[in-house]
């Protein structure tokens, strides 16, 4: 394709493309496309978190449906992302709901659920049994144990999983443009269609930049959301060593088929 792309006329360059909107074939400026991508992703992530985290926490507390999380992750890995987006857009079109936002948001929700569910389940199940036993001995009810003991202990892993999930959601949102949606992916698809090499490059850099930015922002926020005693102590070598097991747990397996 590079040969084809090189043939196109006007030798603009990448920075000219970024700054001069008359070069672009896509209507809508960059900030508004970024905004579209962001709100699709955040909405999808919020819905997925609202469904997956409480469900997984309750089921894990009562040790029910242990196989479900493995199955969810495996199935999520097996089904290609492209399929999920395409099928939802198709169904939505056939029912007259248009290209977006719902088909895309629903597809993203389905993509975000497996890592959130699986990691929350693991985290709550593996919360220190001594702490849970102590809480029970103090007369806390089961729901209080879940809310006041198990969930705080599970926060590092849940937040790490959330970070993986939201990064994947932002990355996948770009695929929506392949199926008639809007968002940053439009620059890539339109660029390929118009054989505009700079548009493709700019789109790719914007998509990648947004994903990495969201990842970094979430990482930064995460550090303040983890309860203080669970934060890895930054200073001495000994503290690093002591916190190592927690840290290796806190990096969850980014399951769900690396769907970015």
């Amino acid at each position, binding site marked *: *394709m*590079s040969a084809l792309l090189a043939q196109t006329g006007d030798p603009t360059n990448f920075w000219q493309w970024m700054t001069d909107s008359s070069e672009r074939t896509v209507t809508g400026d960059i900030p508004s496309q970024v905004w579209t991508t962001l709100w699709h992703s955040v909405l999808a992530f919020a819905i997925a978190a609202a469904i997956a985290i409480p469900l997984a926490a309750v089921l894990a507390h009562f040790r029910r449906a242990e*196989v479900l999380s493995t199955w969810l992750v495996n199935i999520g*890995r*097996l089904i290609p992302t492209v399929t999920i987006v395409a*099928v939802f857009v*198709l169904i939505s079109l056939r029912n007259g709901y248009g290209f977006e936002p719902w088909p895309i948001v629903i597809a993203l929700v389905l993509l975000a659920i497996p890592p959130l569910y699986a990691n929350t389940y693991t985290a709550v199940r593996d919360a220190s049994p001594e702490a849970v036993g102590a809480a029970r001995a103090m007369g806390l009810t089961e729901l209080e144990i879940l809310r006041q003991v198990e969930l705080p202990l599970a926060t590092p892993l849940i937040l790490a999983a959330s970070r993986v999930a939201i990064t994947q959601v932002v990355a996948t949102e770009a695929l929506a443009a392949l199926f008639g949606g809007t968002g940053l992916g439009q620059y890539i698809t339109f660029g390929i269609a118009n054989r505009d*090499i700079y548009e*493709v490059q700019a789109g790719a850099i914007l998509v990648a930049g947004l994903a990495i930015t969201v990842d970094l922002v979430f990482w930064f926020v995460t550090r303040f959301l983890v309860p203080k005693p669970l934060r890895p102590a930054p200073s001495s070598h000994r503290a690093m060593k002591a916190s190592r097991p927690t840290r290796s747990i806190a990096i969850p397996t980014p399951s769900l088929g690396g769907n970015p």
Partner: protein
Amino acid sequence: MTTRRKVTCAVLAVGLIAFGIWAANRISGLSEDTQATNPLFRWEYLFTRERTPEELWQNTREHLELTVWSVLIGIVLSAVLSALVLRFRWLRAAIFTFAGVLYTIPSIALFAILSTYNSNFTAAIIALTSYTLLILTRNFVAGIDAVPQAALDAADGLGMSRVQRLAKVEIPLAMPVILTGIRVATVTVVGLVGISAVIQLGGLATYIFDGYNRNYPTLMVLGTVATIILAVALDLVIRGVEWVATPWAHRRVAR
């Protein structure tokens, strides 16, 4: 998991999928009219004169080719990276951060930008390989790290050299974890190859895009089902390798 439970789960899953297809078929048309003229799936539409089983086979081969090449290159690169991590501990954070950043970059962006500099095939291989690095390296390192100290001491006691110890003790004991990593990476890549259809590389996902562009849902179902079957088949093959490669661990590998 007992065999009975496995069977129950499988039956449940098949039932669920069948119900899903049926429900999608029911709800996906505006009216009975749409249902009749353009249903989601119909056997007669599966193969036509120009879309033959040979074409399906060709696409499967392309898909497989991309997957196998990128996973193989990924294994070699990850072996080097994990060797570096295991030898020089201070490189650990740097290498894992590097692999993590590569993993964060959206595949569509990577395909697009690489295809403006390289041939499409090279671009796809580079992109897919870069996604396997995180999964593979992490599993390689975790596997070798988990080798019990007693085994290492025994190997030293027998007078093995560093290399002998690695080849005869550490790698065999880490084999289950290593192969799990390879399995996960392979299944992941099979799914990701679908996105490489964006840069016109063939593979099974061409069916999905074709079917979408021509409003031809049967093709989309074909592409999806073929991709899933390919992924499951590769998964089973690697599980088989795992079973053969670790004859002493058939109890422990339940993962």
